[in-house]
């Protein structure tokens, strides 16, 4: 086993641990923090089913953002949908045998990489061109965009220009499941791609990427509008009544 293989194996074990543990910690924290008052942004659904629909529209279509800003919406939707397809496509490197749907979307997933980078470029451009967005951007906002763009570009380059030994890459990752370290090809582009992805996994639970789980816990979006029908009482608020 080469030093490189060992290093990347360690990096991905570590990144996966941080991602899973960190996200679990945040999700548990969100779930355990009470929402003491009914605060859905109205008009809001008056049934649980309605809330599921509202949330689905937010997650899949970015409904609120669509109403808020069309440019940001189109770029971010292109980016996220591209990322979604790219991620699905990559599952083939982590599964054996490859399920039919994953095999089916391979060609779409490859071109979705371009969509992802295009969307990111549009979002990044807004951080320079729109004075309001420029004002609210901090270095970390630029760095995360840079990180994603580099991940996308290095991936596209491997797909179309400088191919890597993808069979070995797959063997390396499948081997990680059973702590059986298979050699990782030492292509610079691949190593860059993988280290950036590990980096993304590590920063996920500590950065604004928490917007992904956060959306599901947002009281203005996930609450049913029924305060007159059902009495809503948080445990800490119920203690006032026992006095």
């Amino acid at each position: 086993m080469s030093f490189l293989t060992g290093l990347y194996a360690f990096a991905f074990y570590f990144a996966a641990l941080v991602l899973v543990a960190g996200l679990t910690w945040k999700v548990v924290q969100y779930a355990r923090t009470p929402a003491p008052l009914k605060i859905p942004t109205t008009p809001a659904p008056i049934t649980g089913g309605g809330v599921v629909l509202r949330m689905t529209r937010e997650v899949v279509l970015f409904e609120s953002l669509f109403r808020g800003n069309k440019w940001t919406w189109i770029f971010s939707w292109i980016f996220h949908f591209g990322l979604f397809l790219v991620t699905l496509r990559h599952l083939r490197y982590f599964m054996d045998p490859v399920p039919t749907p994953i095999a089916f979307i391979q060609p779409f997933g490859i071109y979705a990489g371009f969509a992802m980078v295009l969307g990111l470029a549009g979002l990044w451009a807004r951080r320079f061109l729109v004075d309001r967005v420029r004002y609210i951007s901090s270095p970390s906002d630029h760095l995360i965009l840079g990180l994603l763009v580099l991940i996308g570009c290095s991936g596209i380059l491997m797909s179309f220009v400088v191919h890597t030994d993808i069979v070995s890459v797959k063997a390396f990752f499948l081997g990680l499941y059973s702590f059986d370290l298979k050699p990782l090809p030492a292509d610079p582009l691949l190593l860059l791609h993988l280290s950036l992805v590990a980096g993304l996994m590590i920063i996920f639970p500590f950065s604004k990427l928490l917007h992904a789980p956060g959306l599901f816990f947002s009281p203005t979006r996930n609450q049913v509008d029924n305060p007159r029908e059902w009495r809503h009482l948080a445990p800490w608020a119920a203690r006032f009544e026992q006095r």
Partner: protein
Amino acid sequence: MAKATFVVPALRQYPQVPAVTPGTMAHSAPFVAKPEFQSPLGFPGALADDWQAQAITKMGELLGKYRSLRVYMDSCVKCGACTDKCHYFLGTKDPKNMPVGRQDLMRKVYRRYFTLVGRIAPKLVGATDFTKEVLDDWYSYFHQCSQCRRCSVFCPYGIDTAEISMAAREIMDSIGVGQKYCNEIIGKVYTIGNNLGLPGPALRDTLEGLEEDVYDETGVKVRYPIDQVGADILLVTPSADFFAEPHVDGLIGYGKVFHEAGVSWTLSSYASEAANFGMFIGSYENMRRISLRIREEAIRLKVKRIIFGECGHAWRVAYSFLNTLAGPWDFLDSRYPVPQHICEFTYDLIQQGKLTFDKTQNDDKVLTYHDSCNVARASRMGDQPGGQFDIPRAIIKAVCNQFYDMDEDTIRDRTFCCGGGGGLLTDDLMELRVKGAQPRVEALNNVMQEKGVTHMAAICAICKSQFTKVLPYYGMEMDQIVSLHQLVSNAIVLTPREDDDEDDDEDGEDDAQALDDDDSESIDEAA
């Protein structure tokens, strides 16, 4: 036109998003509460030496008590969708009045003390220590948010800046930096029963005066009862309805509707306030204490139903929070929602054909309707989502012949705040109020030009007081803002009853003015 010491924004045909101009409102801050206004609410009177540690501890406590705060501190991706949505940003150009700019005042402190990256590399994520300068910024800009929730409509994660400014005010109160306007008013509710500090005798005088006025005008004896044990309905209305214009015309209207409905109803001198300023300062305890007065009165007066008068933030607390804060309401008549809005009550009667209107009585007006922010985005009327938009409009159309809506981008859940909500309706924030009203007044001006609209109806005491005050800055008349039930009052055809012929006015003279001009000024303030 009212005199201004600042530049009143221009009204344009098409709205424009201003260029970011930092610091234009850094000087704006309301008067700080003196210790005597802090202690009745359970807050310290002044900053202690270790205020910073106290504030961080309080922030940690709130992060554990409010999921909204916890999730919203983490979730913002700085996408910018909210940046052009706040009326205070549009009117002042100050980037700290962009919703995300305002949130970041707290987020940068949160990141410094509660996140890993903020502790290690604060500059990377824009984290800073909680210094006195930051606290001053908090005091200034968290009192430039009317908690109208317009930003939360457009945020992809539903981040509600109102939640954050409420938490910020709660933290500041807990270290002794309170706002005079809100905290003084809450004190008045505790000692007297309403925001204006109107004692029972003054209320009774006013209501007797109203009965006489209505009798003189219509020849029908419409009652305005108070503290009547055994009435069916307890009406809780903002105390501005007792004296301020055009609020009182709305109260006259409620009475006429109750008269036609043939129901028994009463006001209460103990729970003589619908508004609940506890929400503005983010204090669950104070909000609960104020709400419990209504429960106590409902029990004492043995009523069966509770109805709220026209008031925006009050209706939010009533509709969304009252069951939580002061429920359960199982001792009331379960056939009716608790509480009900006066508009729901009137609308139901219209649907049942129990009210007769002479719409021509409002023919001197061409109406538009201002959706009050907290009714629009934080509550509901009726049993369908969006009833809070449709029911008031249906009432207006039932009592007026001429009605036009303002631009779609400025009504319903995209409505602009009047500029005076959320505890900002005070003279020490006049510049902010005038500038914050600009987007709404601009839309109003456009329907005035295009459709010949003359009056704007509203169902919120704050909106009514705010527009009465700020419309003149834009060259409009203060009486262009009207109460919705004032329109109902004008058009409703009253049914005479047997005892209407007897004149039971014994004293025969004009009732003493309960308040002089100076006081009515402060009423306007406290609405």
